[in-house]
C-alpha cells in the first residue's frame, strides 16, 4: 500500500475537522445573535477505492453545512409573536384610558359630585351669591373636565394614527428587505448547486418574525427558495422578490382617522378591518373597541347631563326673573355629527341633520346611513342592527333618540353617511350662562291665599294651596295673576285669568288635597286642601323677587341621582361608572390574554431555541471531540511520515 493512500484519508479528515471546528467557532460566535440557527456540518465518507481486495475507504468529505431549523416551529413563533404584540399594545393603550377615566382627581366622577354638591348648596341657600358662584365655578370645572378627558382620548386617537403610520412604514421596509433577501436566496441557491445560504435564510426568518411583531402574517415557501408573505385576508405583501407596499389613507368618513390602505391595480382600498395581530392590529382593535366607544360613552354622559339639566333649568326662574334659560350649551342639538362618505355621488351633496331628541334612548354606538336600491337603512354599528327608514327622507326619522333629517342636497343610491351622535359632545360641552344671577333656582310661579293690602289673609275657611310647580313654559311668565274664587253653592272654584273656567272642589271628599293643573299655563300644578269658605280665593302669580325660592334648584339637584340615561337605567354617574367598568373589563381581558399569550410565546421561543439555539457546553464538547479527531488525523500524517522515513532509511544507499 502506498503511503499516499494513508495521507489521503488523513488529510480529508484534517480538512473535514477544520470545517467542523470552523462551524463550531461560527456557532460560538453567534451564540447571542437573534434568529441565528445553529449549524451542523454534514460529513459523509468519501467514495471508496476499488481494489482486488474490495473497497477501501478514502476518508471523509463535507457534504453540506446545514442549519438546524424547524419550519413548523418558526410559523408558530411568528403567530405567537404577532398575537402577543397585539395584546400588549392593546392592553397598554387601554390601560391609559382606564387610568385616565378612573383617576381619583382627573376622572369625571369627582367633578360630577362636586358640581351636584354645589347645586345642593344653591338649593339650601339660593339667595347666597357665594353658593351660586360655587355652582357656576364647579359647572365650569365640570365642563373643562369633560373637555380635558375628551382631549386626552383624542390625543390617544392621534397616537393611534402615529402608530399606524409607523407600523405601515416599518412593515413596508421589512417587506422590501424580505423581498430583496428572497431574490438573493433564489440566486445563491441556484449558483451554489442547491446548497442553502443559511445566513440569508436566518436573516429572512428573523425579518419575518420582526414583521409578525407589527402585523399577523402567513408565509408560503416557494420551490425556488423564496417565501411569499400575506397579511389580512390574503393580501400579498411579498411575492418573490417584489414587495407590495401598504399605505396610510384617511378614513372614508372621517379624514382625521388614519386607516391602512392596500393598492391593487391603482385602486387603494381600506383594509383596516381585515388587519389582525401585531402592534398594528392592537392599535386598530384598541381604537374600535376601547377608544371610540369610550369617547362616545363620555359624550353620552355629556349630552345626557346637558339636555336633562337644561330641561329642568328652563322650567326655573333666575334672579333676574327670566325663565326658559339653559345652564349648559345645547350640545344635544349641535353635537351629533353626520359625516358623508368621500365616495358619495349625490349632487348637490346631501347634508343630513342629526339632533338628540330623547336622551334616555341614546346609545353609545355610531350609526351608518345607507341608501340602497330599495330604500334607506340605518345600521347601528355596535351590534349591526339594521333599521329600515321607510319615510326617510320625506319626514325626519328618529332611531335610538336621534332624529335624522335631510337638510339639503340629494342622496344617490350607494351613498352612505356615518352618524356619530355622541362622539364630539364631551369636547363641545360648555356653559350657557356667565353670571351667578342667571342660575334658575326659583320656580316661575308662586301661590298664595288672598290677602288685604297689609298682607293679612282674608280667607275665612281653612282652605290651603300648595307651593305649586310647572312642567313647561307655555304662557309663562303669566300675563296676569290667576285667581281661584270658591263658590260654596256650586262647589267649584271660578278661575279668573289664565285658562278661565271652573275647578270642581267638594270639601267633603277633597279636603285631604286635590291636585289641579293648567297644562296651557306652564303646566302649573298645585294642590288645594282644607275647607274653603264661600268667596275664599287663591292667587297664582309670577314669582316676583323670589330670591329665597329653591324649588327649581332642588329639582336640579335631584337629577344627580335620577336614572335619566340608557332607557332610564343609569344616572350620570352610573353611566360613567359603566364606562369605567367596560374599559376595565376590556383591559383586564387583554391583560389576561396577554399574560397567557406571553407564556405561549415563551414556550414556543423555548422550543425554537431548543432546536436551533447554540449551547456552549455542547459546542465545547464537540470542539473537544473534533480537536481530538483532528489530532488523530494529524497523528496519521505524522505516522505516515515516520513510516516513509523508516522505509527510506531501510532502502537508503549504503
Amino acid at each position: 500500500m502506498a503511503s499516499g493512500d494513508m495521507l489521503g484519508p488523513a488529510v480529508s479528515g484534517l480538512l473535514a475537522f477544520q470545517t467542523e471546528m470552523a462551524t463550531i467557532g461560527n456557532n460560538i460566535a453567534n451564540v447571542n445573535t437573534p434568529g441565528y440557527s445553529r449549524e451542523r456540518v454534514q460529513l459523509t465518507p468519501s467514495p471508496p477505492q476499488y481494489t482486488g481486495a474490495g473497497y477501501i475507504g478514502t476518508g471523509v468529505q463535507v457534504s453540506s453545512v446545514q442549519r438546524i431549523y424547524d419550519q413548523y416551529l418558526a410559523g408558530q413563533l411568528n403567530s405567537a409573536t404577532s398575537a402577543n404584540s397585539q395584546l400588549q399594545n392593546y392592553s397598554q393603550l387601554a390601560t391609559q384610558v382606564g387610568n385616565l377615566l378612573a383617576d381619583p382627581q382627573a376622572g369625571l366622577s369627582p367633578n360630577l359630585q362636586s358640581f351636584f354638591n354645589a347645586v345642593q348648596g344653591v338649593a339650601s341657600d339660593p339667595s347666597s351669591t357665594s353658593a351660586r358662584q360655587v355652582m357656576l365655578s364647579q359647572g365650569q370645572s365640570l365642563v373643562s373636565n369633560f373637555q380635558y378627558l375628551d382631549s386626552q382620548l383624542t390625543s390617544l386617537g392621534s397616537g393611534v394614527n402615529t402608530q399606524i403610520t409607523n407600523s405601515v412604514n416599518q412593515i413596508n421596509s421589512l417587506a422590501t428587505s424580505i423581498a430583496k433577501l428572497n431574490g438573493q436566496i433564489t440566486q445563491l441557491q441556484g449558483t451554489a448547486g442547491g446548497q442553502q445560504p443559511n445566513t440569508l435564510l436566518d436573516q429572512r426568518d428573523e425579518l419575518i418574525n420582526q414583521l409578525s411583531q407589527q402585523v399577523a402574517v402567513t408565509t408560503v415557501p416557494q420551490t425556488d427558495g423564496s417565501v411569499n408573505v400575506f397579511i389580512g385576508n390574503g393580501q400579498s405583501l411579498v411575492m418573490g422578490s417584489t414587495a407590495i407596499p401598504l399605505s396610510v389613507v384617511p378614513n372614508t368618513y372621517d379624514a382625521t382617522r388614519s386607516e391602512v390602505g392596500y393598492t391593487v391595480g391603482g385602486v387603494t382600498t381600506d383594509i383596516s378591518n381585515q388587519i389582525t395581530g401585531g402592534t398594528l392590529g392592537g392599535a386598530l382593535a384598541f381604537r374600535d373597541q376601547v377608544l371610540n366607544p369610550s369617547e362616545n360613552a363620555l359624550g353620552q354622559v355629556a349630552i345626557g347631563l346637558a339636555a336633562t339639566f337644561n330641561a329642568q333649568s328652563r322650567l326655573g326662574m333666575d334672579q333676574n326673573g327670566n325663565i326658559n334659560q339653559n345652564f349648559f350649551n345645547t350640545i344635544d342639538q349641535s353635537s351629533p355629527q353626520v359625516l358623508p362618505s368621500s365616495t358619495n355621488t349625490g349632487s348637490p351633496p346631501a347634508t343630513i341633520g342629526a339632533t338628540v331628541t330623547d336622551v334616555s334612548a341614546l346609545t353609545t354606538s355610531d350609526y351608518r346611513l345607507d341608501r340602497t336600491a330599495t330604500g334607506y337603512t340605518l345600521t347601528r354599528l355596535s351590534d349591526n342592527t339594521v333599521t329600515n327608514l321607510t319615510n326617510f327622507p320625506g319626514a325626519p326619522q328618529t332611531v335610538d333618540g336621534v332624529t335624522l333629517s335631510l337638510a339639503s342636497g340629494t342622496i344617490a343610491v350607494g351613498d352612505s353617511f356615518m352618524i356619530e351622535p355622541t362622539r364630539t359632545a364631551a369636547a363641545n360641552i360648555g356653559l350657557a350662562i356667565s353670571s351667578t344671577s342667571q342660575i334658575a333656582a326659583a320656580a316661575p310661579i308662586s301661590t298664595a291665599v288672598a290677602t288685604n293690602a297689609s298682607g293679612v289673609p282674608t280667607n275665612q275657611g281653612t282652605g290651603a294651596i300648595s307651593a305649586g310647580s310647572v312642567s313647561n313654559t307655555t304662557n309663562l311668565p303669566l300675563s296676569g295673576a290667576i285667581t281661584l274664587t270658591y263658590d260654596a253653592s256650586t262647589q267649584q272654584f271660578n278661575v279668573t285669568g289664565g285658562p278661565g273656567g271652573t275647578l270642581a272642589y267638594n270639601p267633603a271628599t277633597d279636603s285631604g288635597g286635590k291636585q289641579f293643573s293648567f297644562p296651557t299655563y306652564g303646566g302649573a300644578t298645585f294642590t288645594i286642601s282644607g275647607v274653603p269658605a264661600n268667596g275664599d280665593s287663591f292667587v297664582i302669580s309670577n314669582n316676583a323677587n323670589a330670591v329665597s325660592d329653591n324649588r327649581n334648584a332642588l329639582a336640579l339637584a335631584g337629577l344627580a341621582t335620577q336614572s335619566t340615561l340608557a332607557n332610564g337605567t343609569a344616572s350620570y354617574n352610573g353611566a360613567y361608572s359603566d364606562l369605567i367598568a367596560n374599559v376595565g373589563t376590556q383591559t383586564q381581558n387583554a391583560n389576561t390574554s396577554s399574560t397567557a399569550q406571553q407564556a405561549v410565546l415563551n414556550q414556543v421561543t423555548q422550543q425554537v431555541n431548543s432546536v436551533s439555539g447554540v449551547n456552549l457546553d455542547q459546542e465545547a464538547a464537540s470542539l473537544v471531540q473534533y480537536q481530538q479527531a483532528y489530532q488523530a488525523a494529524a497523528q496519521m500524517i505524522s505516522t505516515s511520515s515516520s513510516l516513509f522515513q523508516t522505509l527510506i532509511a531501510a532502502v537508503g544507499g549504503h
Partner: protein
Amino acid sequence: MRISTSQIYNQSVNAMLTEQNQLNQTELQLSSGKSILTPSDNPAGSAQIVNLNQSISTTNQYQTNASAANSRLSLEGSTLTSVTNLLQSLRSLAVEANNSTQSSSSRADIAQQVSQGLQQLVALANTQDANGEYIFAGYQGKSQPFITDPSGNVIYNGGQNSRYLQIGPTTQVAFGDPGTAVFEAVPNGNGTFATAASASNTGSGVIDTGSTTGTFVPDTYTIAFSQATSTSPITYSVTGAASGVVASGTYTSGNNISFNGAQVSISGTPANGDTFTVAPSQDQSVFATLQNLVNSLNSNAATPSDQAQINTGITRSISEIDQALNTINQTSAKVGARLNTVTDQQNTNQSYSNGLQQTLSGVQDLNYASAISQLSQEQLALQAAQEAFAKVQGMSLFNYLR
C-alpha cells in the same frame, strides 16, 4: 430537552423580570394603600368605587344641608321664644291696664310701653340669619318682610311659602315659616268670633270676648238694646244678618247671652239703642292687635261709655294676644318637630355614610397583612431567581477545558 445557552440566560432574566413586576405591583399597592390601582385590576370594583364615592359625597351634602337646616331652625325657634316672651309681657301690661284703678295718664304710660313692644316685635319678625336672609319672608328672603307704613300700620311684603331642604334621599324639611303663617294669619276675637261695641254707644255696657257652646253658626250678629223709659227693664235682641232674630230677652248685667253656638256676656248698663256685634273671626296680624291695644289705651275716658269702649277694646286685645301666642306656639311646635326630623336624619345619614365607607374600604383598601406577606413571598421568589442565575451563569464546560 435540549437547552440553548441564550435560553438559560433568557429564562433567568424573564423569571427575574416577572418577579420584579409582581413585586413592583405589590409595592405600589402598599405605598398607596389601595388594592385597585387601575380599573383593569378589578373592573366591577372600580365601578363600585365610583358609585360608592358618589353616594358618600351625596350623603355628606345631605349632612351639610341638615346642619344648615338645624342652625336655621334653631334660630327660628329662639326667635319665636323671644316673640312669646315679648307677647306675654305685653299681655301682662294689657291685663294691668284693664284694671279699673288705672287713670288715663297711667294707661298712656302703658301705651308707650306697648308701642315700644310693637317695635321690638317688628324687629323680631324681621330677624335675619347669618347670610342676611330674612327668616320670616318666605321666598322673598332678601327684602325686608315687615315694613311700618307712615300711618303706623305694619305691612307684610313677603311670600306665603317657605323652601325645603333636601336632608336625605327622600327627606325634605321646611327651612322656615313664612311671616303670613306666624304673624299675619292670627284669628281675631276669641279665635271663633270677635265681639265689638258700636262706637256710637252711649251706655257703659262692656262686652266680653265670649266663648262657644257647641258649633258656632258663622254670621254677623247684632245685639241691640232697648229701654222704653229710664225705669223700664232693659231688653235685648240678637239678630243675625242671615239668620234673623236668634235670641232676645231681658238684660241682666253679667248674664250670659247665648245664640247659635256663641255665648257672650255683657256687663254694665247699656243705653237704649246701644248695639254690640258678634262676627266670625277674621285673620288679623299681631301687629294690628298691638296697635289696637295702643289705640284703646290712648283713648280718653271722659264718659262711662268711653270707659266701656276702652275696657271692651283691651279685653278683646288680651284675647287676641292669646290667639297670637297660640299661633306662635303652634309654629314653635312645628319647628321643634322639624329639628327632631333633622336630628333623626343626621343620625340616619351618619350611619348610612359609615356603612358606605366600610363597604368602600372593603372594595378599595388594601389588606396590609396579606399584601405584606405577599411582598415577602415575592421578595423571596426574586432572590431565588437571582441566586439561581448567579449559580447557573458560572456553569460552563469551557471552565474545565484549560
